[in-house]
């Protein structure tokens, strides 16, 4: 029996009530949100419930939404995969600034570096992570470069005018 999205939604709603919300089919992947306080338990539920069995963490990433309200400044996106039924699922949790969320390293060993990367680039603090320090950037760096306010280029450059390349504040 294939794993139906309606079944997943029903099980999650039963277990977590209104802590899980916005169920939606985003193209081929079933997507929903969980509140930051329950995200760890939701992931554990998805992984350990026998009929759900999302045993593989494909990806974990941060996203910055500076234009959102104060409670939705950052998102952490978990993409899980059940290889046996071949079903993917995407879980999001939105966080305020400063962002803080429970680590999932106790459930997936591979979350270790993924969370370090999210900390490095977005400054999302993963509570309970065994070694939360920068990974791709140098230790001495003070900012989190994937935040939208961090400029890609040195603002003092005069040799390059973005208007000549078709870029205006409206389209990039």
């Amino acid at each position, binding site marked *: 029996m294939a794993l139906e999205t309606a079944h997943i939604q029903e099980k999650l709603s039963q277990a977590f009530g209104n802590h899980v919300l916005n169920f939606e089919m985003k193209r081929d992947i079933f997507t929903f949100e969980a509140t930051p306080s329950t995200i760890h338990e939701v992931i554990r539920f998805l992984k350990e419930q026998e009929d759900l069995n999302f045993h593989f963490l494909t990806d974990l990433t941060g996203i910055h939404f500076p234009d959102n309200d104060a409670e939705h400044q950052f998102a952490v996106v978990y993409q899980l995969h059940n290889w046996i039924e071949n079903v993917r699922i995407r879980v999001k949790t939105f966080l305020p600034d400063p962002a803080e969320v429970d680590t999932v390293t106790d459930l*997936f060993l591979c979350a270790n570096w993924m969370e370090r990367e999210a900390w490095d680039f977005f400054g999302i603090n993963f509570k309970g992570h065994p070694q939360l320090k920068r990974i791709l950037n140098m230790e001495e760096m003070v900012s989190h470069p994937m935040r939208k306010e961090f400029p890609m280029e040195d603002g003092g450059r005069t040799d390059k005018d973005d208007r000549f390349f078709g870029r205006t504040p409206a389209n990039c």
Partner: protein
Amino acid sequence: MSDLLLSPEHRYAKIIEKTRNEDGSELSILNLGPTHPATHGIFQNILLMDGEKILDAEPTVGYIHRAFEKIAENRPFYQINVLTDRMNYCSSPINNMAWWMTVEKLLNIEVPKRAQYLRVIVMELARIADHLICNSILGVDTGAYTGFLYVFQFREKIYEIYEEICGARLTTNMGRIGGFEREWSDEAFKKLNIFLEEFPVAWKEFENLFERNRIFIDRTVNVGSITAEKAMQYGMTGPNLRAAGIDYDVRKAAPYSSYEDFEFDIPVGKSGDTYDRFCVRNAEVWESLSIIRQALAKLPEGPIHADVPDYYLPPKEEVYTNMEALIYHFKIVMGEVPVPVDEIYHAVEGGNGELGFYLISDGSRTPYRLKFRRPCYIYYQAYTEMIKGGMLSDAIVILSSLNVIAGELDA
């Protein structure tokens, strides 16, 4: 890094002090990398050694981090392709095609069958080039240089085929949104046919040199084993996972670019050690050759790109003579083509595993967020555990059998 090594606060310093006081043994620290000829890339591992035995390792990555995700947020879709080349530079066409397929999925573009088949051919060629390098370098690291020199000429042949297709060799920037930029030349097919004749002979000889070779077996069997559960926990995909016995392959699990039209097996190993990884890659090369032959035999006639003038730059001579072409050229270059608001995850089977692109589009010219799921970055975490308790020379062999590519690791 130097103060880290000298610092009495470092955990290695404490361990060394403790064992010296307990039983008088002298542990030492060895700094392997970041630039070392045996690591084939820029990785640093600070090893805690007891004689020649590795007790602990601390990996440092990020030496060639180029902020691709940040750059991608500031570039239109068609300019991001050149960033993907530079991730797994041993099999750039796979990365290129994966990126185009992600964009096509976002824009709902149906690619013609011929273009899909040609993509399959070039992706499998890239996989052969990737596995060929990994396996022959593994030979070099165990002391057999001949095999490497012998098969390396065929990577050159593959690069010549790339050259015929797109003009570039290593960082190919191949294809466009919707298909290819031009029809493959006759020369490309000629070279491909010669390759399909000559390469299997050489690859068979290469296999014979290694698969039953006493020295090679002694150096690789039971070296760096990993169980299926651990491999899954560490997020391994691709040949490294299949060597541990799990038959997960994106080409079968979620076929893209008409992979469902071809018959091929997924080779799996058993113990997840270095020898199994070698054998899985060898077997995959044979499967890739078979897929290329099937694709060539079934190759349909027709256009090589989808009819999407909004996203596909028109030929230059038409831009000068044709009104529509000029308008489309202008619109594409100035970034005035419509892009839907959506969220896409597209994965392909890269040389090292599941290569995924997670693209969030807010309807503007550039991605709002683009995350590369780089298989190397994720499974390199397992390296520390795999080398613990082994010999230093085994650590080198394990590193090359994992096929960790620095460009993909650091993005």
